[in-house]
Structure formats: C-alpha cells, structure tokens
C-alpha cells in the first residue's frame, strides 16, 4: 500500500505523541486548561452581557428624543425677565427614517402630549401605542385591562381627582372633534403618568389637529457593544433639529461595571495564557533535547531543516487541536456551572467561542514551540548523533 507523504507525516506525528504519553498528556492538560478558561470566560462574559442587558431593560427607556423648542430671551438692558418658549413638535416620519438609518437595536415608543377638554376642565392627554407602552414600561400597574379600540386608560391621580373608574365613558373635546372613550383601566406608574389620560396616538393627533407630530420619542437601546453615549451621539447627528438625551444613569453604570468585569476577566485570562505558554515552551524544549539523536538521524537521512521542523510543527498543531477541543468541552461545562450558579440561567452555545478556544490552544502550542523549533533548525547532525 502506497502511503502518501501527508498521511505518513500524520502517522509519524501520532506515533511520536503516543510514544511520550506522559508528556503528551501533560501538554494536553496545560493547553486544555488555558483554552477552557478562555472558553468559560467568553461564554460567561457573553451571558453576563445579555443578563445585564435584560436587567437594564427592566428600567425602561434609556434614551429620549424631544424637539428643540423655539426659545426667546425676554429682557431689556441689564434686566432679564426669563425665557419664553413656544410648543415645538417632532415630525414622526423623519424620526422613523433617522432611527432606521442609525441601525440601532431599540424598542421605540412615540408620544404626543396635549390638552383636551373634559367635564369643564382641561386635562393632559398622552397619545401612545399601547403595545409599545407595555413593552417599555413593564412595571406600570394596571387595574382593569389594557385598552382596545375606542378605549382609554387613566392615570391613578387623575382618576381620583375626576372621580373616574374603569367602565366609565368619557367625552373629550379637541379642536376638531369630540371623542367618546370607555375607560378600560386605571394605571399607576408612581410618576407624572399618574396625572395623564392615555389614548391611541393617531386619535389624539387628529383631535389636536397635529397629524404626524410628536412631542417625545422614548427608546430602549438594547444593542451590546457600543455604549449608550455613542448611540445617543450617532442618533443626534441624524436628527439635528431634535435633542437626544440619555435618561437613565443605571444603563451607563451597568455598562461601566460590565466593562470593568470584562477587563478583569481578560487580565486573568492573559496571566493564565502566559503561564500556560511558558509551561508548553519548557516541556517542548525538554522534548527536543531528549530527541536530539532522532533529529540528527532525520537530518543525516537527508531531511531538510524545513522537513524536520514540519514534523515538530505537526506535533504542536495536533496537540493544539486536541487541547482546543478538550478545552472547549471542559470550558463549556465550567461556563454552564457558573451561569447557573451566579445568574440562575443556562449558558448558550456560541459557535465563535469554539473558534477562539481552538485558536488559543493552537497559538499557545505553536508559540511554545518557537524556541524548540529554533533548536531543531540549528541542530548539527554529527554532534547530536554523538549525543553532545
């Protein structure tokens, strides 16, 4: 049977590794340990990022977009009587276009706030899309149901003041029309929303004669990677006539904390990788020293330096691949344990972590072999065969 050169090389490499079982297992253990650490930290880091993002979601919107209102300073000479501003609005379509263009991963809700007349009084009404509200403000407490078509929800304080309850029908008078809405529930947020009446955005736009206008856009940016500040500034550039602001410090604090924990993880990984690399280099050097006669023989038989080095490279690659596979499997188990214990959730399979794990193991195996390879390259066949 004719064995081609590549198959023979693999055969030779496997035989050499099997011959030194103890040393091979030691090298595999070191490489597997290093790559399992990289795997575990990668998976835990990714899980942590997702977990923090989920936690941040609970705090609701983290960016708001408001119109830049027209401001006019009132004063004369040294006297300043203050600032007057006239209502300003955002145009819904350009905002939607800007959001699409920004590529941000965000939950969005559009708001229009204005006054309508009810029971001989003006009340503040907010037009919203109720499904957006339910996603962005999951902590709002509702007595009754979320509204269907022709229904509304009323803030807790407003309902108390106006003696309203679920099931009542209210008449709201706007510039252009009268609207009859049935109250489906009383909502409590613990904030200014408790003094508002909520209705569907298009109906309010029509009632106020402000079709396609908005007073506020709330965003809950969920995309990992770029910071909230970066998202805000990139959005601001796309909407020069609006003002984009961060609303919650929580998100920024979480991002900062996450970045610090990730840095710590990277530093720990780097220390382990350096230690593992040194260990691999030491073991490989000893192996090369022990195999001096074998290398000398290969050279005496006509093996070029490149061909002999290829055999040792093959051994390093084989160890790297096996160490990478073992490291990935072991690291996944460790990651699963950590995420279950710390985050009470299970770690998911992330394909690129397998590539990283393999890469770390291969890199260490080859890096640790550089010194020994140089020795192989320089080794004099006559002296090595004499055992010098």
């Amino acid at each position, binding site marked *: *049977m*004719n*064995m*081609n*050169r590549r198959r*023979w*090389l693999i055969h*030779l490499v496997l*035989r*050499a590794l*099997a*011959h030194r079982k103890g040393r091979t297992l030691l090298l595999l253990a070191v490489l597997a340990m290093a790559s399992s650490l990289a795997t575990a930290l990668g998976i835990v880091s990714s899980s942590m990022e997702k977990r923090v993002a989920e936690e941040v979601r609970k705090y609701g919107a983290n960016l708001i977009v408001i119109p830049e209102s027209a401001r006019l300073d009132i004063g004369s000479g040294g006297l300043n009587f203050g600032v007057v501003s006239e209502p300003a609005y955002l145009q819904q379509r350009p905002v939607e276009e800007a959001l699409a263009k920004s590529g941000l991963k965000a939950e969005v809700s559009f708001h229009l706030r204005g006054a309508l007349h009810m029971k001989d009084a003006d009340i503040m009404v907010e037009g919203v899309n109720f499904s957006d509200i339910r996603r962005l403000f999951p902590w709002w407490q509702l007595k009754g149901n979320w509204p269907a078509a022709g229904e509304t929800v009323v803030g807790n304080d407003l309902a108390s003041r106006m003696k309203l309850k679920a099931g009542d029908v209210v008449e709201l008078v706007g510039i252009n029309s009268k609207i009859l809405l049935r109250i489906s529930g009383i909502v409590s947020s613990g904030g200014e929303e408790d003094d508002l009446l909520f209705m569907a955005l298009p109906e309010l736009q029509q009632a106020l004669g402000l079709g396609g206008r908005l007073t506020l856009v709330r965003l809950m940016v969920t995309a990992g990677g770029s910071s909230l500040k970066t998202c805000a500034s990139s959005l601001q550039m796309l909407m020069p006539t609006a003002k984009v602001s961060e609303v919650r410090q929580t998100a920024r604090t979480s991002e900062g904390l996450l970045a610090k924990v990730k840095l710590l993880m990277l530093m720990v990984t780097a220390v382990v990788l350096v230690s593992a690399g040194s260990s691999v280099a030491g073991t490989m050097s000893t192996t090369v020293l022990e195999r001096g*006669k*074998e290398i*000398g*023989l*290969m*050279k*005496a*038989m*006509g*093996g*070029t*330096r*490149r*061909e002999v080095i290829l055999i040792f490279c093959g051994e390093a690659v084989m160890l790297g691949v096996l160490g990478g596979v073992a490291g990935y499997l072991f690291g996944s188990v460790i990651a699963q344990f950590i995420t279950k214990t710390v985050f009470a959730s299970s770690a998911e399979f992330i394909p690129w972590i397998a590539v990283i794990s393999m890469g770390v193991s291969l890199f260490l195996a080859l890096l640790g072999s550089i010194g020994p390879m140089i020795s192989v390259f320089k080794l004099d*066949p*006559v002296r090595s*065969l004499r055992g010098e």
Partner: protein
Amino acid sequence: MVESIIETNGLTRSYGDICALKPLDLQVPEGEWLSVMGHSGSGKSTLMNLVGGLDRPTAGSLRVGGEDLLALSEDGLARFRREFVGIIFQQHHMVPYLTAVENVMLAQYFHSVPDEAEARSALERVGLGHRLKNRPGELSGGEQQRVCIARAIINSPKLLLGDEPTGNLDHKSTVMVMELLKELRAEERFTVIMVTHNQDVAAWGDRTIYLDDGVLVREERMKS
C-alpha cells in the same frame, strides 16, 4: 579507467586549534569498497562525515559524485545526502517508536514517498521478513543493524558509508552483516566506505587506508 566517485584535494577539518584531518588527497573509484582504519581520534569518522555531507571541511576541495560539496547550502547538502548517500551507524540510531518497516519508510519519506511494499521487500532482502512490525527494543543488535542496512539501501544510494557498523556486534553477527553487505554491493554496485577498528572487517574491502592523527599514513590493496 574507472572514474573516481570521491576526489579530495588538501581536505582539512579543524575544530579550533585541533586539526582532526590534515590535508588529505584521496581518490575513490566508483564501485570500490574502501576500508578506513586507525585508532580513536585518528580522523576516520571525520573523513566519513565530510564525504557523507554531514560536516563541512575547513579547507581543501571535496567532490563526491561530481558534486562540489563546499558549494552546497545546508539544504543542498541535505538533498545530496538523501539522493546520494546511505549511512550505517555503529549505534544503529533507529527511531524507537517506529517499527522496523516504519524505520525504513522514514528514509523513503525524506527521499520521496513512503512505500510500504518496497520497505518490506528491503527488509526481506536482509532476512528480516519476520520482524517487520517489531520495534527496535524488540530486536537484537544484529537485527537492528540489518534494519539499518535496509534503511541505508532503500533509496538506491551511489555511496554507502559505514561508521563501524559491526562495532557492537558479536563475531557471528559481524560475519552475517558483512556477507549481507557484500551481496548487496554485488547487486546494487554502490561504492562502500567502511570505517572500522577491526582488521578482519577491513579485509572485506578492496583497499584499506590507515589514518593516524589526521594523516593518511599507509594504504593497502587487498588480494581478491
């Protein structure tokens, strides 16, 4: 007239202040069996290493098979060794984790392509057809030396170098190895340079040269 396969002119090898081989002029005709004798440190192995392209001379010229070895790079010398030379060592130097047949195939790997059938046939020629799958540790000294002979001839070299190949063998094994080499030489027609301490082993050759302190002191042609 038979052409010389080896031609040296003022061939010298020094290690610092020590001159292991003093200027040597030597011609070896193609197909000759040359025995090199001398005490330890007389320069025998140095000469063999130079002729085999394992070492470089300090001065002089060295042509083997028409190739100027001084002009060859490291990789050029490696290619010369694989194409032109087969070496049998006193210490056998077999790869411990490979079987007998795999040790022979290793020489094929560096020469061209490993061919198990050819390697088996080479081992059968040296009488080791029944020991193909044995590792060096499972073979006697004589058997290991026969594996080394099979490994040295597998690529059909023009020049076979033996560095005291029977030095570690008993009389019976020595005779067996020498007879084997004689047979193979008759079939393959390679040139032999055999370094030895043993006058009986040297007597198997066509000519013997004697080195002393790096100098060729005597030359003797054997009666056929």
